[in-house]
Structures are given as C-alpha cells and as structure tokens.
C-alpha cells in the first residue's frame, strides 16, 4: 500500500472565541506522509508570520527532497533515517529564517513559534517538536501524549515541584521553555515510533488541550474515529464551548494500512523516475 492510501489525514484550525487573529499554521502532504502544526507568538501579526514560515519551510523543503529519495534511507554520516534528519534540519532552517526576519524587521522582533511535525515512512513515524504543541496517539483503548511539552509546567512536574493533578490549576500554563526562531540555535526533540494499523494520531495546539481534558479528547476520538472530519470539528467545538480562549488547531492521521518502504530494484527504479511518483 502506498503511503497516501495508507493514511487518512484531516486538519482544521479555528481562531477560538476570544482572539481575532489565528496565529496557528497547519500543513500536510499525504503523498509524503508529512504533517506540520505550528503555534506562533509575537505582537501584531508576527505570530502568524513565524508559524507560517515554519509550516512553509518544512513543507517545501521536505516534499522536495522526498520527491527523489525515501525517508527510510540511512544518512551516511550519522546512520540516522533520512526522515529524522529532514525534520531536524528543516526546523532549524525555519528557525534561521524567523530569527533573521525578526532581526531585520523591527515589527517582527521577538517573534517565535512552537512546532510539532510528523513524518510517516516505512511503518514508522518520526516526530519532531519544540514548545508546547503536542502529538497524541490513540492505539486500541489507550490515548496518550507521545510528546512532552517544553514548558515551565512540564519541568515543574518532572522536578516534583507540582503534581499533575495540581498542574491543571496552574497559572503558568503559558510559559514555554523552547521556541523556534528566538535564538540562533534551537533544541529540537526527535523520536521515532513504530506505527500499527488502526493507530490514530492527533497533533494539536495548546488551544485544544488547555480547554479540553485529555480524557474527553480520547473518548471523542474513540467514538468518532470512523468519521475524521466530524471528530476534528467536534474537538474544535468542545474547545470553543469551554471558552475557546486560544486558537485551536489540529491534524488527525489515521493509519488504515501498512506502508513498508520498498527495497531492491523497484525502489531504485522509483528513485530514478521518482519525480513522477511522489
């Protein structure tokens, strides 16, 4: 099964009930198995600019490379999958673009963005993230986050300063410890996960998980997974019914089949004529 048949992808974004701007950006490419969600921050429209740069850099650069290469190829130097290298390099590239734009144009000073990006290849999923945008996975009955926020609150939870129960009431939810575009170098966290047929992945901005409890998100996805567009609109509606204090964005990816990388001569032929295929 090729990847665009194996994956069903739906995305949605809403400004919420309070804000006039939508500073989130979402983009995906089903034929390459790429999903990117970014939540921008900064005055005026700088937040939109920062998240927009990240989404477009990641999309353009990664789909361009994958037109003639497979994300499952090993990098000669590091031995890592090309998919992992692509995610990391392009978050850094987005970081550079945002940082220099902010340096050269005063209205963009200090802008930045979170990002969570996934690349599906060879029955695997590489996930890169910076900041507090999340990726969750529903596998069977289990719904859980597979990213860990780069936020003050998460660090306090990890350090035992505050319990997860108390953290729900914290007033420090809006402090991230890492962001794309605020410094020359960005620390990017990348992990590779095995994918199983039937898995459902959710990428979301904090406008969803701050307004709707994980448990409610999980049960909504369990009930509505047969209709992804409805699941997406239902989640956004729940965030807005609860106050919708921030922009709400999400991407849902359902794995309907296996997508192993093809090896041998077929792969080489595909690589030769790849630009027509991907």
């Amino acid at each position, binding site marked *: 099964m090729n990847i665009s048949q194996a994956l069903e992808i739906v995305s949605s974004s809403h400004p919420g*009930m*309070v804000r006039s701007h939508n500073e989130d950006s979402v983009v995906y490419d089903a034929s390459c198995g790429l999903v990117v969600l970014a*939540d921008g*921050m*900064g*005055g005026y429209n700088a*937040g939109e600019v920062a998240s927009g740069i990240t989404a477009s850099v990641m999309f353009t650069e990664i789909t361009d490379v994958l037109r003639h290469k497979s994300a499952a190829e090993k990098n000669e130097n590091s031995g890592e999958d090309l998919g992992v290298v692509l995610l990391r390099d392009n978050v850094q590239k987005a970081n550079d673009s945002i940082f220099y734009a902010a340096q050269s144009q005063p209205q963009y000073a*200090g*802008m*930045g963005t*979170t990002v969570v990006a996934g690349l599906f290849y060879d029955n695997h999923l590489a996930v890169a993230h910076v*900041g*507090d945008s999340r990726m969750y996975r529903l596998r069977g009955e289990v719904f859980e986050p597979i990213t860990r926020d780069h936020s*003050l609150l998460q*660090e*306090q939870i*990890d*350090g*035992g*300063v*505050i*319990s997860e129960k*108390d953290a729900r*009431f*914290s*007033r*420090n*939810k*809006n*402090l*991230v*410890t*890492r*962001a794309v575009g*605020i*410094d020359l170098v960005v*620390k990017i966290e990348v992990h590779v996960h095995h994918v199983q047929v039937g898995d459902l992945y959710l990428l979301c901005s*904090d406008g969803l998980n*701050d307004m709707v409890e994980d448990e*409610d998100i999980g*049960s*909504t996805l369990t*009930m*509505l997974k*047969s*209709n992804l*567009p*409805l699941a997406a609109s*239902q989640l956004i*509606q*729940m965030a*807005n*019914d*609860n*106050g*919708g*204090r*921030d922009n709400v964005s999400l991407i849902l990816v359902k794995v309907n089949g296996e997508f192993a990388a093809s090896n041998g001569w077929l792969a080489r032929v595909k690589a030769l004529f790849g630009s027509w295929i991907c």
Partner: protein
Amino acid sequence: MAAKLILSMSGVVLQEYPLNKERMTIGRKDHNDIVIDNLAVSGEHAAVVTVHNDSFMEDLESTNGVAVNGSAIKKHFLHNNDLIEIGKYKLKYINDQAGASTAEDFEKTMVLSAPIHTSANHLAKNATGEATGRFKSVAAAQSSRIEKTITPQQIKPTVPAQSVKAPTPPQMPPPAPPQPTPPVSHQTGGVIQVLTGPNAGKELELVKNLTTLGKPGLQVAVLTKRPLGYFITYVEGATYPTVNGRLLDDQPHLLVENDIIELAGIKMEFYLK
C-alpha cells in the same frame, strides 16, 4: 497584580503581605518575612514559594504544623481563597488574576529563555539551566473580558460547591449552524427513549458530552451535549439517520423535545427531564 496573603486572628485582619519574593518565610523570629509573635508559632514555621503566578505552601518542620482548609499539609499547591492556619492565626491566599482559577491561561504563550528573572534560582534547582525568564510577548490587557466566556460547568470543578457565587449568566458562544429553534437550557438532562426493536421502552440518559447510537459499520450517529442544547450528527453508514422523518445531512442538528429519531431501523424519542 501579585498574589497576597491576608493575616487575621479571630476575624480581625492584622496585615496584608504581597507575595513579591520567590520565597517568603513565616515564623516567630524577627528575620522572617511574615513575623507572628506567638509562642505557638515556631521560629521558622513555614514558607511560601512563588513561581511566576503559582504559589506553594511548605511546612518547615514546625512544632505545631500548618493546616490548609482544615487539613494538615507538608507541601501544598495554593488555590485562590485557600485558608492557611498557623496556631490561632489565619492566612488567606488571594490570587484573583482574571477572576477565576481557570482563566490563567488566557495570557498568550510566552517564551522563557535568556538570562535574569526573579525566579531563576528556583527554576535552576529542578530544571535545566536554560529556563530563566525573559518574556517575549505579554498580552494580559484583555484579561477582564475572559470571565464572560466561562460557563458554569467550568467553574464548578475548581470551586467548592458552597462557594459558587452564581456567576452572571454566561454569554453563550454563537452557535456554529444557525438554528431557528430556541436554545435549550443545558441544566436539564436529555433522555432518549427507544420506541421499537428489542430494546423498546428502555431509556438512555444523555449524561456524557458525547453519546454514540447505532451499530458500528452499519449506521452510527452521535448525540452531543452543548451549552446550546443537544445535537445529533451523522457519523457513519451508507444512509443518514432521520429526525421526524427528515434525512440528516453532515451538519449537526439541534434536537427539540419529542423529536423522533430513526437510526439503523430503530425509532427513538428525544425528550428533556
């Protein structure tokens, strides 16, 4: 506005202390930030640690202990209006930014990076060195608007029942699809009664936010409980369910009392109780 502690005894307010330091100590001896000169109070009795907008109460192994809202604590995450007892003295914790403890995240996301902020030392103990504070963007100005959008359901879980001061009627968010029917109060409970088939006569109370009906793979609809009322939406199946004989489309449909739903060959009635 910084959070504060209000010291009182026998209902008489003695002093207010803004929590403007990362760590404030409470005790009998003079060097404490909050001095309570009473023999029941230990030399260094307790401390309040404040990290940005959150505060924690800690008992410093005092002889007579610290109670918060009536229970003894060693360490406690403070909520707005918590009552701390030290001997006969009471300290009330007030942190009413944006009015309610659910409104905190209204402020826009900010980045903690680069050097120097008051709470840097505290963070360094339990986090990586990068987490010191420089705010990239601050947007607290609109915080007064937020209260309007909090619905009563949100307030209930965070405030003890007896202290809910019936908030002014919440301003409902506008409905996604315009519906001519008047909104149903969400205080009333919706019920589905099965009219035909093997389960005829059975009732299903719609207590959860989402309830799915039907047979997976054949025909499924979801009933959603929203501030505006109950909606039915098609989920899957070759044909759409009907309400009062009319086929649904992909949009949510607001249910009104005595609507007859037909789904997977079964008829059921919606009503409110």
